[in-house]
């Protein structure tokens, strides 16, 4: 099948992606850095990675997990704990005498550690939980996320986690900007770097999905019993998918920490998981492109384009009714319910960008004939 497919859509896709990266780079050098566009792009990149990692489980393996926020929390904390400059620790860990971790590791190492820590937690959780069936699994992973949150908030672990207090002062996206001696920014990279990190991670996930492992995962999703009969080791594959997904959720958590500039356990609630789940659903369960696309759409709408719904608007002397705090979220919810009920396949269904392009090409071809 795959060999017969035309290579053209694939190449076009690669060009498109390259073009997006170049556009981001150029935009960053030319537009004012305070523009809302960059906030959306940065947060969108973070959410894209997290959404794709959730899709790997929910869409490609058929494991309905609701533990995403918990793994992000682990990633964000590990990143923070290992990168806060030693000089700042006394101020950050003010109630715990500066904490017991008194060294830092390079940023890339910290990010990988974030992922590994999340994967390790996933491994531990997966041992008992992955045996459960669909909704029991969902509720168990949700519960685990809550347990992780309580553990990280516990004052007993304060010297490591700073208890329930926030971690801050670690390198964030703005530190990627290249500055001259006077502290003036010469090259802006604060948006491009998160794009690159998320891009590399998503690429790895795509490669996994298209490997023989990925096909095994899809087989499990479609029919567990049949997959097992075909000689696929269910437990092994599920655990692997769970750990890999959590690894990337952990990296996503570290990126979220960089985006927010502070980390605190109390913000990683189940509401965060639901939000990511809804992004995946809007994008299309089982489509990486869909998840990425809907992440940016979701973030842009909630942070930027639909903001006006939360404020009073006057058209001439006429005050538009209904608009006040919270209306944006109501509109959002209605859109989501419409997608969930009537467009269950989301924006992309299970199609990817190359599929879309090739279908277009095929249609055109037919039309010509």
């Amino acid at each position, binding site marked *: 099948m795959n060999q017969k497919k035309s290579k053209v859509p694939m190449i076009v896709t690669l060009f498109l992606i390259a073009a997006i990266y170049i556009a981001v780079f150029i935009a960053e050098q030319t537009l004012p850095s305070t523009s809302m566009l960059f906030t959306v792009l940065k947060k969108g990149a973070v959410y894209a990675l997290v959404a794709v990692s959730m899709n790997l489980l929910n869409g490609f393996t058929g494991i309905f997990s609701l533990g995403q926020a918990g793994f992000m929390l682990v990633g964000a904390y590990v990143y923070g704990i290992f990168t806060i400059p030693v000089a700042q620790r006394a101020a950050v860990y003010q109630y715990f005498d500066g904490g017991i971790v008194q060294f830092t590791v390079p940023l890339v190492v910290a990010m990988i550690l974030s992922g590994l820590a999340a994967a390790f937690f996933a491994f531990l959780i997966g041992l008992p939980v992955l045996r459960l069936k669909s909704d029991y699994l969902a509720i168990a992973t949700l519960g685990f996320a809550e347990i992780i949150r309580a553990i990280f908030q516990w004052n007993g672990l304060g010297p490591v986690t700073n208890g329930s207090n926030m971690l801050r002062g670690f390198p964030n996206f703005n530190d990627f900007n290249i500055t001259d001696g006077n502290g003036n920014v010469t090259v802006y990279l604060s948006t491009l770097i998160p794009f690159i990190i998320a891009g590399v991670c998503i690429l790895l996930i795509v490669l996994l999905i298209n490997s023989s492992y990925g096909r095994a995962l899809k087989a499990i999703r479609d029919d567990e019993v049949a997959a097992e009969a075909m000689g696929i080791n269910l437990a092994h594959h599920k655990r692997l998918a769970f750990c890999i997904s959590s690894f990337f959720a952990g990296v996503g958590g570290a990126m979220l920490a960089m985006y927010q500039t502070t980390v*605190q356990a109390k913000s990683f609630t189940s509401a965060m998981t639901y939000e990511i789940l809804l992004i995946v659903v809007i994008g299309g369960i089982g489509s990486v492109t869909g998840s990425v696309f809907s992440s940016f759409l979701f973030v842009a709408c909630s942070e930027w384009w639909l903001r006006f719904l939360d404020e009073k608007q006057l058209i001439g002397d006429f005050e538009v009714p209904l608009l006040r705090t919270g209306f944006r979220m109501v509109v959002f919810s209605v859109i989501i319910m419409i997608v969930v009920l009537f467009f269950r396949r989301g924006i992309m269904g299970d199609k990817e960008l190359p599929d879309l392009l090739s279908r277009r090409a095929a249609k055109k071809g037919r039309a010509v004939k």
Partner: protein
Amino acid sequence: MKKLIALVLAVMMLVPAFAMAEDVIKIGVYEPASGSNGAGGKQETLGVQYANQETPTVKIGDTEYKVELVIADNGSENDKAPSAAQQIISAGASIALGSYGSGVSIAGSDYFKNANIPVIGLTCTNPQVTAGNTHYFRVCFLDPFQGTVLANYAFNTLGVKTAYCLGELGNDYDQGLIEYFKQSFEKLGGTVFKEDFPSKTQDFTSYLSNAVAYGAEVFFCPVSIEYSTLIIQTASAQGLEMPILGGDTLDSNKVAEAATGTNIKVIITTFYQEGANEKFDNGFKAWLNSDAEAMTNNGGNDMIAAVSVMGYDGYYMALEALKNAGSTDGAAVMAALPTTEIDGVSGHIKFDDTGDAIRTSAFVKTINNETGAWEFVAEQSVE
């Protein structure tokens, strides 16, 4: 699909055009309007809005500028702080005011710093807000001071030796103030038992039982308005006999309402006592009574919250700094702030080297359980 992309692109083209009208200067109001600090944040915003309608223009250099407030809701949540800060920054504000709650102030801090916009903290009392940076200032007193005042008051005036402290997990204000209270109280020779509750807790019965079981004589809970009203109501149902002690967050008409008709004694420290400045009091009340929306945001009556006063003073501080800077540029305003002084409603305001207002006294107030009004007890200072 194509249509969708076209639509998205079209919207993207339209939105970023932030046309700056001439002679308008923007002041960001970075306050919670929802969440657990929403009620307090709204009252603080009211102070700013009142000051703004009293003095809607400012003369910078030779130009008269109209002041426009950019009000952004940080939702009392640290993870919503970046969006709110960014909203103010992208609107092109020259200076920002806020926030109620130290956690969100710290969480939004770096965004303002990177955009070179100075911020005047109104009632964020945690020392970490201004420590180690040059862009964050504040007009209120600090927690080490407030904690000491409360500890002294509890130990010396109330004569209690054992205190039970309850704070919200992950709330920098609660945790900080309790820590400073604990240090001072223990130094005086008292015993402190401290516990935390998870966010969104509604059931405080067990925590109140804990306080009793520990043999505490005072219940110190410097938590948000929402939690403290619940604690007072539950305490009343359980017949709690010890007084409840709180920080500036409890200075709210909602808290007073909750304690009305109960036997719970509530004692707090705060920034302002109604009656200290007649002109402000009368003006503010008249404004509240003329504006239905403002009245609702103030919790339905015209009792003056200390946080509104701080909002009012913060606004004038910002205007003064803008005048001194002679420019609307954030960096210039930041440079002008350290030498800016005003005579505010809450007293003379002048910043020290860290950017904190130099304050030497706090008001101690208590609720009259019959009338539901805040009553002045003492003006406390620390030697």
